């Protein structure tokens, strides 16, 4: 009995999706926490002329530099707030920075069964979930800029 109970609990836990919900230009988005390297104050970016879509600047942290993905540009919005935040996305090619609104992101655990297909075409998503206000698309930051 005990073994069976533990097994069921594991199965149940594995279906929970841990998300970070943040906003860009007032648009609410979610990302799996395992794809996030951290959140900090936006340090300001340094332009790097480029022809890669939405990647044309970097940020510097001490002796390291990270490319910036212009998520706001892709969504055709402007990042809101004076105290913007920097979301570090984990990618196979290395960490990448994304400038997000100053509104503090929140962690959310969601039953995976509540994730639905997302109909919006403005962003490549893994699906979406419905909260009290709207459908929140779940994006894969690991895939941003690779299309």
């Amino acid at each position: 009995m005990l073994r069976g109970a533990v097994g069921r609990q594991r199965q149940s836990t594995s279906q929970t999706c841990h998300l970070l919900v943040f906003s860009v230009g007032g648009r609410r988005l979610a990302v799996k926490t395992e794809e996030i390297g951290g959140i900090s104050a936006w340090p300001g970016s340094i332009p790097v002329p480029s022809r890669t879509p939405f990647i044309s600047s970097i940020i510097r942290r001490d002796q390291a530099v990270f490319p910036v993905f212009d998520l706001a540009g892709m969504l055709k919005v402007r990042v809101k707030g004076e105290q913007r935040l920097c979301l570090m996305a984990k990618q196979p090619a290395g960490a990448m920075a994304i400038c997000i609104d100053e509104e503090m992101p929140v962690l959310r655990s969601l039953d995976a069964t509540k994730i639905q297909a997302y109909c919006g075409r403005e962003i490549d998503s893994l699906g979406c979930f419905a909260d009290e206000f709207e459908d929140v698309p779940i994006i894969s930051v690991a895939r941003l800029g690779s299309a």
Partner: protein
Amino acid sequence: MSLRGHRQGSAAHEPTERYLIVSVAAQRFALSADLIQGLLTLEESRSVGILTVQGQDYPSLNLAGRIGLAEASDGPETRFVLVARAGTRACIRVEQVHGLVEVERVHMLPLPGQFRSDERNWYFGLILLEEGVAIGLNSAWLIGGTMQGSRSLPAQEERPLQLAHVVSEGMGRGLAC
């Protein structure tokens, strides 16, 4: 930072490379010092017309245009950087010359892999300065853009000009690269 050279880093034994740091379209770029033949002020460039220096023609190279930037208007710090590589010469208009830096290899970073278009040919990497970052321009790409309209040098003319010969009074310091 000065034209006499400024060491970027601390360990004296580290291998270093020298770069001229310039601004183009309000962004900092690093030109390999090996390319640099001289600097001219706006006045000097006007006086010499088509930028013929010591009998050598330096065709104009629109760096801002080649990387998709709008060229800024002339200002008091505008300079023309004369460059040459393998017998090909060019003249690059820059908004400002910040100076010559000696950069340790540890302060030269590759372009992050997420940059995956033409810019991978434009730049060799990024240089960490005391304040900010300079984008390292790929010399082969840079000079390659001037192949048309340039002419090869006879062997005896391959010796680079001394920057001190053409550096302007306005730059203040004679520097031999």
